[in-house]
């Protein structure tokens, strides 16, 4: 299994420890105490400021019905590009496993944490900006 160069080991530790502090809206509506992981099919990567969004189709997950999920990345395309992402990092039809913090109100939405592309094993995260040793994920 290959790991994407953008995956920084340190980012995982920071991701769990850092206070949620994100560009342009708080992420406090997402619940870090109830993380979810499930298989899904990418519909699109919305490559927009202030936050990019991975849209995925999934079957029933726990008490959630099947349908489209919005998985919001915690920062903008400009910052994601500095972490190694680009607008083609995932493509429509990619089978993936996603890790998210779901929104507290029960809708099919969540904070993106990690994604593995099943065909390649590539892992995508929103980690640190290179050169900033202690910059929390955003």
């Amino acid at each position: 299994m290959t790991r994407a160069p953008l995956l920084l080991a340190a980012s995982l530790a920071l991701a769990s420890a850092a206070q949620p502090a994100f560009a342009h809206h708080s992420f406090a509506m997402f619940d870090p105490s109830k993380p979810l992981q499930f298989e899904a099919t990418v519909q699109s990567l919305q490559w927009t400021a202030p936050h990019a969004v991975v849209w995925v189709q999934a079957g029933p997950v726990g008490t959630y019905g099947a349908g489209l999920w919005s998985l919001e990345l915690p920062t903008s395309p400009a910052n994601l590009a500095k972490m190694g992402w680009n607008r083609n990092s995932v493509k429509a039809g990619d089978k993936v496993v996603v890790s998210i913090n779901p929104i507290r109100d029960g809708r099919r939405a969540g904070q993106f944490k990690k994604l593995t592309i099943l065909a390649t094993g590539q892992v995508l995260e929103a980690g640190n900006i290179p050169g900033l040793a202690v910059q929390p994920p955003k």
Partner: protein
Amino acid sequence: MTRTTPRPLLAALWLALAAPSLAQAAGPAPGAAEPVNPKPTRADWIAIADQPDLSGVWTPGPLDKYPPGNTTEPKWLPAIKPIYERLKQLDAEGRPQNIWVDCLPEGLPSSWTQTLNSLEFLPTPGRITILGELDGNRQRRVWIDGRPHPADPDPSFSGHSIGHWEGQTLVIDTIAFLPQVYISTAQGVGIPNNGDMHVVERITLTGPDSARVDLVVDAPHVLAEPWKASRTLIRHRERSFDLAESSCRQGDFLEGRDKDGLAIWVPLPKDDGGARLPLDQAAIPASKEQKR
């Protein structure tokens, strides 16, 4: 006299002609020349080479909820403190009262203390322009040509800024903020400055590619004393850090097609806190309502 111009028309004509001089009445003294931005000379451009070099793209350093050197929160007036504490509590409970979900510019001091986005300084004769990578490349103009603040400037999100160099430090003095501009300590926790805010920034080069911004925020209608905050910056010369267009509202829409096949924006529903939702999830499912 064979032709007369109707009086109302004359009055309108007089107003139109007089408008420039009326506008001037609030500015320079009668008879004084309209101030201009002089054509830069070769010497003016060369002089920039002798200024401390702020060129390039800077990323905000370690994101500190309460920035380095300032481990205390702003000292709010007694009437404001409970409002602030309530916002903090709601944020901690997962019900953030977001203050920027409308995508209006952050303004000072939050464009320093809360931002996660890169910025760059563009020095030109008499002025330093600060571009940020959000709000469609928000910009600030800092006049370093010796001019004073205007007597009655129009309020704005980033205010009116004048600056000067003290050694390696660019000192910027800013007034004329809109009273709605937040003093914030988190993305969902902030208090409007309520008017008469005054911000002094000291931007100091601390190394070849590092800088620190020290802020003193005085907002007498909400703060019991001026709030001091700092932020560190790291410079990047890599082209991958060149500022990108970054329109804050764009994320509120999906790319779509209308019935004629034309590319359009499709508005997305959002929750109270600003999270984007699938089109079929605009309402909270009845089965989940009790979870709130």
